[in-house]
Structures are given as C-alpha cells and as structure tokens.
C-alpha cells in the first residue's frame, strides 16, 4: 500500500499542502538534572505515512527513544521539557493538544512497544487481562468479550495455544512470546502508527527475524505507519522504507533505505554500516567507530561527531553543519558529505 509518488523525505514545512500521517518537526527535548540541563533532542524532524516504515537508527543516548516518548506523550515532565517543536498527527499538533484529547489518541491511534517485554508487562496480571484492558477501558467491552478478543489477538500474533494460555502470567512465556503479547496489546485497537522501540534487542537472533517478520506482516495487513527504533542496522534493512540516523540528539542523515545502505552520505552512517558483520567480507577485521558517544551535558563544539570522525577538517570543530540537501529525498548533516558519498559508491 505504499505510495511512492509522495515525497516523504522532505521536512514538512517544505511540503505543499500534503501533510504526512505523522510529522515530527524541529523537536527539542531537554532534561533538568542536578548537573544541569541535558539536551537530549535538538531539532529532530522526521515523518511517516500510512503503510510506511521508518527506521530510526542510533546509539543509546542519541535521542531516538526520547523522541518516540515525546510522540507518545509518555515523558515524565518534569524533569523533561519540550521547549520547541511540533508533533503533528493528521496535521494537528499533539504537543499543544488538551490532555484528554491526546489521551484519545495515545494507545488507540498511536501505539508503542518496548524493548524488554518482561519488564514492560505487569507481572501481577494475566496476559489476557492486559490485552483485554484495551477493549474494556477504551471500548467499554464486557470482561468476557474482552477476553475473547484477547484470544483472537494472541492467535493473530501467532502464540500457539492462545486459548489455553490467555490466563497465564507474563513470566510464564518465553522472550519472543512476550514480545508477541506486547505487539498484540499494541495493535489491539488498530492504531494508525506503531512505534517499536528496540523490539528485538533482548531476543535471540532467530527470534528477532520472526518478530520483525510479524511486524512487517501486520503492517501490510492494516496499512499502519511503523517507526522502528534500533541501533542494529542489520535488523531493519529488509523491512524499512527509509532511515533516519540520529547522533547526539540530532538527525545526521535521512535517506531511503536503498540509498542509505548503498552509499551513506554521513561518516557516522558509514561507520555504522561498516561495523555490521558481513558474510562476503569474512576474515576481514570488523570495523568499529572509535571513541565514545558524546556526553549530553558537555557536547563537543561544532559538529558533535567531529571527535570520532575520519573526515574531520578544521571547520568541523567550530561550525555545526546544517542538514544539507543531498538529493530531493536525502539529507546529511556533514560539511563533507560529497566526499563520504563518493567513498561509499566506489
């Protein structure tokens, strides 16, 4: 159900009257800590349309999860604060929306699943109760009907013997099955957007593929927009339509998944790609990006990536690069993106 004619990669402000399903626009999030203000997200923009999958890539601390939590409206405020930016859903800003209107969207129209399904599921309620709660609370369904719907959903996410397991507790399931339960809960009310925050990080490799396959399949069936947050590029290559790479609270590159993987336009993306183990390069030393992720309390001057960057030149230390337009579907926040791009296509 993809619509390739719509250009979804430009910033929303630049589009003419064609508002995407969900658009994050120049979002800033900061945390008040004892040591000072931590700017976790600094002007992030991305968008997703129905049926589209956006992969948000980055190391921990890059701000990718915080952005997702800001979209959901589940940040603890305080200590978090959103000084600037918009999150538009069908063109309406969620951040300025009254609480009860936003409550109508959260969980029903925009849903989210988390990394560690064991801790993300309540240990003292049965899985059927937790899935059924969506129907009971949001649709006023009776207990018995909600339980029946829970079984249906468990079948839909392929939990074997759903009927007999609906009254089990989360800890009685395996890791993969628990993540399926999380997914069942999230898709219960047919959301238009599903945000998956590192959905497979805690799982075995074989299970990872199954879960990614399930997500892709569910998306096809219902035409959801899917935001897939991960630090693992290998996981998303098959399912994503486009990628947004985050570093130090900013987007450093956005591209279609094809362009991004073929020839990255930012040295950080390049580094990430080169650190994926590849069968065809067996025997070669695995590349690792040197240095540490930036300290959010003490960001490097200029380009945040410069201390770790092999393309660094003098002005990188002083001038923060804007998001340069690489092509009409692509952006890179690197002064020297041309060089990076050239290296990549060789």
């Amino acid at each position: 159900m993809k619509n390739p004619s719509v250009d979804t990669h430009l910033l929303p402000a630049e589009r003419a009257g064609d508002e995407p399903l969900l658009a994050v626009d120049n979002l800033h999030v900061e945390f008040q800590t004892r040591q000072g203000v931590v700017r976790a997200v600094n002007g992030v923009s991305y968008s997703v349309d129905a049926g589209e999958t956006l992969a948000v890539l980055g190391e921990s601390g890059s701000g990718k999860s915080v952005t997702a939590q800001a979209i959901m409206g589940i940040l603890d405020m305080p200590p978090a604060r959103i000084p600037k930016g918009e999150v538009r859903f069908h063109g309406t800003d969620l951040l300025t929306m009254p609480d009860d209107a936003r409550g109508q969207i959260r969980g029903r129209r925009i849903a989210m699943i988390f990394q560690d399904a064991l801790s993300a599921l309540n240990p003292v309620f049965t899985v059927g109760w937790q899935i059924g709660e969506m129907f009971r609370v949001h649709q006023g369904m009776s207990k018995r009907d909600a339980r029946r719907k829970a079984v249906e959903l468990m079948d839909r996410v392929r939990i074997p013997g759903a009927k007999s397991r609906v009254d089990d507790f989360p800890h009685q399931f395996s890791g993969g099955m628990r993540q399926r339960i999380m997914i069942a809960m999230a898709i219960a009310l047919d959301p238009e957007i599903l945000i998956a925050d590192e959905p497979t990080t805690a799982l075995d490799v074989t299970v990872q593929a199954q879960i990614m396959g399930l997500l892709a399949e569910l998306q096809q069936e219902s035409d959801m927009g899917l935001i897939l947050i991960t630090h693992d590029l290998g996981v998303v290559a098959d399912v994503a339509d486009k990628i947004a790479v985050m570093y130090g609270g900013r987007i450093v590159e956005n591209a279609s998944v094809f362009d991004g993987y073929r020839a990255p336009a930012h040295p950080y993306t390049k580094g990430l790609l080169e650190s994926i183990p590849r069968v065809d390069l067996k025997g070669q030393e695995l590349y690792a990006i040197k240095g540490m992720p930036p300290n959010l309390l003490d960001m490097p001057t200029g380009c945040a990536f410069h201390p770790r960057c092999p393309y660094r030149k003098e002005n990188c230390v002083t001038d923060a690069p804007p998001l340069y337009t690489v092509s009409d579907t692509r952006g890179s926040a690197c002064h020297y993106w041309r060089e990076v791009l050239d290296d990549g296509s060789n």
Partner: protein
Amino acid sequence: MGRYVIRRLLQAIPVLVGTTFLLFATVYALPGDPIAALGGDRRLDPQLVSRMREQFHLNDPLLVQYWYYIRDILSGDFGTTFRGVPVSSLFEGKFQVTFQLAITALVFEAIIGVGLGLWAALRRGRWQDQAVLAVTLLLVSIPTLVSGFVLQLVLGVKLKQNTGVDFFPVAGIQDGMRSYIVPGLVLAGLSIAYLTRLTRTSLMETLRADYIRTAVAKGMSRRRVLGRHALRNSLIPLITYLGADLGTLMGGAIITETIFNLPGIGQQLFQSVYLRENAVVVGIVTVLVLVYVLANLIVDLLYAVLDPRIRYE
C-alpha cells in the same frame, strides 16, 4: 503453589524446634536453682525440694526435659508454676486483650502508614514529602516508653483538666474499644514510621517500572495507572509487612501494657518476670514466639497468593 506451600511449611519445622529449644535451654541451662529461688531467703525442706525436682523433671538431662516440655505444649498443657498454678490459667482472657491491642495498633499503622507513604510518594521531592520523612524520623526516635507516658499525661490528664474532654481513657480496659485507642497508637508508633517509609519507596519504585510506562502508553488514565497498575504491585510488600508485624506487635506490647495498665499477656509477662516465675515466662515467650513465627509463615503464603511470580515458581 501446592509445592511452595509444602516446602515453606517443612522449612518452618526446624525453625520452630530450634527456637523453642533455644528458649527452653536459655532458662534451664543458666545458673540459679529455680526451686531454691522459690524459697527466697529461707531454706526449704530438702524432702520437698527433691520431690519438686522429680515433679518438674529437673534431674533429667536438658534434652529429656525439653522433650517433656514440647510434648506437654503440643497437648495444650503449659505446665504449672512452681507455686502450683497451671500456666494456661494465667493466659485466660489475656491473649484477647493483647490481640485486641495489637489489632488496634495494626489498624492505625495501616491507615496512617500507608496513607502518609502514598501521599509522600506522589509528592516526591516536594515539601510534603520532606515533611513526611521528618515525621517518620521523629517517630522512629521516640521509644514507646516515652510516647506512652507523654500521651498518657497529655490526652488522659491535661486534656481533661484544660478542656474537659474526657474521651481518651489511658488506664485499664473498662471503656471497651475506646480503652485501646491511645495504647494502640503508642504501640503502633515505630511501625507507622517504618510502614510509611516502606510504602513511599515501594510506590516510588513501582512508578519507575517499565510496565507503568506501558500502561501510560496504552492510553490508561493517570487514575487507572495509579489505582490498578501501580497500587497492586506496591501493596504486595506492604501487606506482607503488616502481617508479619502482628506478631511483632503482640511480642512488643509488654511496655505499652505496663504503662496503660492493660491486663494483657505482656503485663502478665512483666509480673512473672518480677516474681521470677520462669515456667510462666518461658510459656508466654514460647507462645508469643509461635505467634510470631506463624504470622511470618502465613505472610509468606499470602505472598504467594498475591505475587504470581512466586506462585508458579
């Protein structure tokens, strides 16, 4: 769950045997001849002494004496004092008084402790939270010995003198339920402080849990997140604490009962210590320790009912 219950019950047996033996040995292995002590300064007729030694198995080895003692206790016979009064007759009516006192304290504890703790946790870091913590610090620091006499003076005497209000009886149990209010509050003091702190940390920890974030992301209202998702989880340790505390309160009632002149088991214990009736002292302490151990056991089983993670271990 059945396996868990059986295992827990089996674990309790060596503890019970060990504990009762320890109590028994403490009294009978230590210096001092109980029969001689009975006579005070006078010398007793040697024939009488040997007959009494026989009757109380005092000539047998400690382990044999312990066996007789356990056998008697299991058949409900706590023996007789050296003066010939059955120990169990001294218990009559007294356990009810102590039990009622402990229950009153438990009610205060549950209402005030849980209430203050939840309130503080929801206002974490603000002045209300700081104030609650300061109050618990004070409560922990005031021994029963002090709070008992102070409340007796303030509520029982000064209040009556200055305002004519005579609502709080502070001695005896003639006023029925009302008699237990002030002593119950005094007995609960320390526990209120502990429970307040426990409630506060428990709820704060629960609110940090990932599944709370999930509930919010599911679009549940703040009310429902707190009332359904957080409360159930944070109440588990509180209920177990309260259950175990019933045993502690009954065992710790001795000073409160002495101050407020309540004819409970603690006061009996105090009098028996004073009169050096060791059989009575051991009997009472054994029973109270049994209550304590059983309360803990029941709480462990309750835990399994409340927390499914243990139930299916």
